[in-house]
């Protein structure tokens, strides 16, 4: 009975959370369509989020591509299928690894920063000061961040995929001795435009997830510095889990439109 009550309470909390995210999303969309976009702030955020995250995304993509190549090669070599390494890496990078790695890195780097900044503004009454000056916090803080994420994350996904495949190519041909033309030919043959679409679509969706959760955490922060710390940790944890979980469902769903391996 107690267990049931606890489950009920957890479910209710979860629904409330989803409701708050939905409310924030609808307020953001309405603000954009009412023409309350602040271009200057948006560009500033793009440089912050997009430009500043490149290094970490590229490094993550490259080393994951490299290690994945090595492992695939070791296994495939036993079956004499070394030249199949190329397409395996490129399809996996486009469909799964590129978007997920980018999502996780952006959640850690940008999600944390956003929730900490908004959380600090909340607990030091700067959000109230904005409201008191008749500036809606969603217009001023959330919309520029949301637009910047929508622009930046898909591009970062592309970058991650590109550098992952590049690293894979280098490792396969220079270190493991796979023939360059075999690698490239098989890669072209088995990689479709759909695979890249899928990565980019996932990038858009992860951008929405991360920005909504991080802003929600920041705007609901309370209890001073401790509360800001809590909001930041929660933003990163919830964003990362949401990226991983939604990725599974997105893969299943998008596979209907962009079937793999046909």
């Amino acid at each position, binding site marked *: 009975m107690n267990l049931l009550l606890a489950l009920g309470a957890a479910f209710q909390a979860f629904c409330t959370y989803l409701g708050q995210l939905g409310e924030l999303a609808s307020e953001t969309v309405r603000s954009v369509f009412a023409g309350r976009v602040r271009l200057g702030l948006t560009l500033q955020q793009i440089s912050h989020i997009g430009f500043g995250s490149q290094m970490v995304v590229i490094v993550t993509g490259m080393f994951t591509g490299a290690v994945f190549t090595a492992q695939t090669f070791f296994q495939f070599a036993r079956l004499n299928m070394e030249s199949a390494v190329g397409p395996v890496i490129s399809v996996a990078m486009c469909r799964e690894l590129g978007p997920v790695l980018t999502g996780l890195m952006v959640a850690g780097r940008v999600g944390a920063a956003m929730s900490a900044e908004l959380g*600090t*503004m909340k607990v*030091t*009454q*700067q959000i*109230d*000061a*904005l*409201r*008191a*000056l*008749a*500036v*809606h916090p969603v217009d001023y803080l959330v919309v520029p961040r949301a637009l910047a994420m929508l622009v930046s994350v898909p591009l970062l996904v592309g970058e991650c995929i590109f550098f992952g495949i590049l690293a894979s190519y280098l490792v396969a041909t220079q270190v493991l001795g796979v023939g360059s033309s075999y690698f490239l030919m098989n890669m072209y043959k088995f990689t479709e435009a759909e695979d890249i679409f899928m990565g980019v679509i996932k990038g858009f969706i992860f951008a929405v997830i991360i920005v909504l959760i991080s802003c929600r955490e920041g705007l609901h922060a309370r209890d001073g510095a401790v509360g800001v710390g809590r909001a930041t940790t929660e933003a990163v944890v919830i964003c990362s889990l949401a990226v991983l979980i939604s990725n599974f469902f997105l893969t299943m769903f998008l596979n209907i439109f962009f079937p793999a391996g046909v």
Partner: protein
Amino acid sequence: MAAEPMIDVRDLVQRIGGQEILRGFSLPVMRGETLVLLGRSGGGKSVFLRHLIGLMKPISGRILVEGEDITGYSERQLEAVRRKVGMVFQDGALFDSMTVAENVAFPLRERGERDGAVVARKVNETLALVNMTGHEHKMPVNLSGGMRKRVALARAIVSPPEVILYDEPTAGLDPIVSDSINRLIRRMQRQLHVTSIVVTHDMVSCYHVADRVALLNAGRVYFYGTVEELKQSRDPVIRDFVDGRSDEAD
């Protein structure tokens, strides 16, 4: 028929976490007057001010601003009210990602002023009014408490609203700066006909700026009247507050 109050608060009730903070608080504020709100620390004065611009919603009661009941307003509807009613927060609430000058320029830019020269001139004039010339380029974290308060004051008056809510504008300031702030509050009223509510513990400031005084005690308005009436009152609660006595034995 008497003139309609600029702000009329009726039977406000607010509870936070089981603690009753306001229990039927009613207070009219006439157009163009300066009302000083006195009360014990932790009595709910700041909480009350937050209700007047819709930063908090009361549990019951009504708040009329120029006859409009704002208690049911949405965040967007409140924007019009907030352009009319400005607030100086107790601890400043400056934007810490902006310099002093950018903080003061913020309301001007939000009201659509695009001309950089006009903004710079108004910012300088307003900073001079609060004796903060020469600190334009500092960040708020590098200011003293009193300086932060004065910048917050400058931000609230740079594009003067019709009503200004001051939350302890002179607390933590030296007597000389306090006096210039008191004069500033008076001048805003005289020259721009601003209606003001000043929350303070500072009786000097109270006598200087008040047209009318209200004393908040136990969640209600315990006293409401002129400075003269306050001075002549024989009521022990009022006397203790005005003369600064606690009922503790030595």
